[in-house]
């Protein structure tokens, strides 16, 4: 029996693989990668990137430790609280991931190395900072060759960003259609004519879309200057992309105008504030909007994942998280249709609901959207929380509520079973209700529950 288990997502790169042993994630480095690894560590590149928070730090594990026989080395990278994917990121998250990839590329060239692959799946967010997590992506730079990962970079970073900017399609939704990147031809087809009159678009999108890929041309002559110019150009294009102004976000003014009243919000904050008694835990805020409660949770040293279907709200929250280095990971996820297992044999990327069991989940003003808006029965909703968390703070919004009435205005009321009694019964199957409190000035009730058994 081996003491390790190879991670199902780690098989594409012959340089090594990630494996789990005793609850920790290690990375084995194979002998074929030895010289590149030694160059990464010896050239000062590793130290510079780690100091600038661009590359995940790791420690080398001694020989007596876990790993496959015949390995060159085993390393233990810093633990990442929650893994996320580009089909869950807002525009600015993808943009920052692209920029850090280019910055790493530039630093690498200075140290005689390059990135052999450039995909958003190599980037993870830690407290609002995009960090490269694949230590084995670096290889010795051959100055006579163009960038091997140029096309991958364009397909997975540049094209989704540019198409999103022009078409107002949200970048994360494009990744659902093109999980491994968008071909130049598809990107070109989605862009309006005016996009052609832009040098950057023309060079990196329309030109590749019209040049048929030929056989590998061994006679190419390239040099460091040319490569640096391309990297700088990509950096300039991506850095100056304005996020598509999301004029049609329904939730834009939620806290400014739309929410019932200021009094209601402050009452809710004080109730929830008292109910939260976790510190330094993994917490999920479902239906976070712009993250008022995520920030409350983060202020108590928790690792917060903030989830909302509205990309605009997530963008607003991400900008703040970035500015204040908050321990919050904002993600664009539709709770009624979260990302499933992805990749080869559905094993490379875990579904959202199976990725982590959270210590606490808060779901405020969410239940009515799922039950009335999406026809999800209360008992099915309870199953979701049973799967995802061990403690729950949840707000029940009754049918008489103004917002529920708005939802019901345009449709037939088929929700006879939607009431407070039914809510308590459905959730009591798996949870024990520990506290319940009505929010003064409304008929909404906030519950604190604990998973039983």
């Amino acid at each position: 029996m081996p003491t390790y288990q190879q991670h199902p997502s780690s098989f594409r790169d012959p340089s090594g693989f990630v494996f789990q042993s005793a609850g920790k994630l290690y990375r084995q480095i194979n002998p074929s990668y030895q010289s590149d690894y030694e160059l990464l560590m010896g050239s000062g590149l590793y130290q510079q990137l780690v100091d600038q928070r661009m590359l995940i730090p790791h420690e080398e594990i001694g020989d007596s430790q876990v790993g496959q026989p015949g390995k060159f080395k085993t390393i233990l990278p810093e633990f990442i609280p929650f893994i996320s994917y580009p089909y869950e990121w807002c525009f600015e998250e993808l943009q920052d991931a692209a920029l850090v990839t280019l910055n790493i590329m530039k630093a690498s060239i200075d140290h005689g190395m390059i990135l052999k692959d450039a995909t958003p799946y190599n980037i993870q967010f830690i407290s609002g900072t995009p960090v490269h997590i694949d230590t084995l992506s670096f290889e010795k730079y051959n100055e006579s060759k163009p960038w091997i990962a140029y096309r991958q970079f364009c397909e997975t970073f540049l094209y989704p960003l540019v198409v999103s900017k022009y078409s107002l399609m949200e970048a994360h939704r494009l990744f659902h259609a093109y999980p491994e990147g968008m071909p130049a031809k598809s990107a070109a087809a989605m862009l309006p004519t005016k996009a052609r009159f832009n040098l950057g678009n023309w060079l990196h999108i329309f030109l590749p879309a019209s040049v048929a890929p030929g056989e590998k041309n061994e006679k190419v002559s390239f040099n460091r200057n040319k490569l640096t110019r391309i990297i700088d150009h990509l950096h300039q294009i991506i850095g100056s992309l304005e996020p598509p102004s999301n004029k049609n976000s329904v939730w834009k003014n939620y806290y400014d105008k739309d929410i019932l009243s200021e009094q209601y919000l402050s009452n809710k904050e004080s109730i929830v504030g008292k109910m939260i008694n976790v510190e330094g835990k993994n917490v999920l805020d479902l239906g976070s909007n712009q993250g008022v409660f995520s920030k409350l949770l983060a202020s108590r040293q928790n690792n917060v994942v903030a989830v909302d279907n509205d990309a605009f709200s997530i963008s607003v929250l991400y900008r703040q998280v970035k500015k204040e280095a908050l321990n919050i990971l904002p993600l664009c996820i539709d709770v009624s249709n979260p990302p499933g297992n992805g990749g080869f044999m559905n094993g490379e990327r875990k579904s959202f609901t199976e990725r982590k069991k959270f210590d606490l989940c808060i779901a405020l003003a969410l239940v009515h959207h799922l039950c009335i808006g999406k026809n999800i029965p209360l008992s099915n909703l309870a199953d979701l929380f049973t799967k995802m968390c061990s403690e729950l703070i949840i707000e029940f919004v009754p049918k008489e509520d103004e917002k529920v009435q708005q939802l019901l205005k345009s449709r037939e009321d088929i929700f006879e079973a939607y009431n407070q009694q039914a809510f308590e019964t459905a959730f009591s199957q798996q949870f024990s209700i520990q506290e319940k409190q009505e929010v003064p000035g409304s008929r909404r009730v906030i519950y604190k529950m604990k998973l039983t058994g």
Partner: protein
Amino acid sequence: MLKALLYVDPGSGSYLVQMIIAAILGGLFFFKNIWWKIKAFFTRNKQHPTTKEKE
């Protein structure tokens, strides 16, 4: 011809594109430099930031 297209390495093809892009960017850089020099000649007291950096 078409048959060959189905079996190309994912990285290839972009080599040719990168050569064209680098050539165009290089050309632009060259003309920009000349433009700056002409501008500097006529304005004299105003130097371009890149030339300042070198000093």
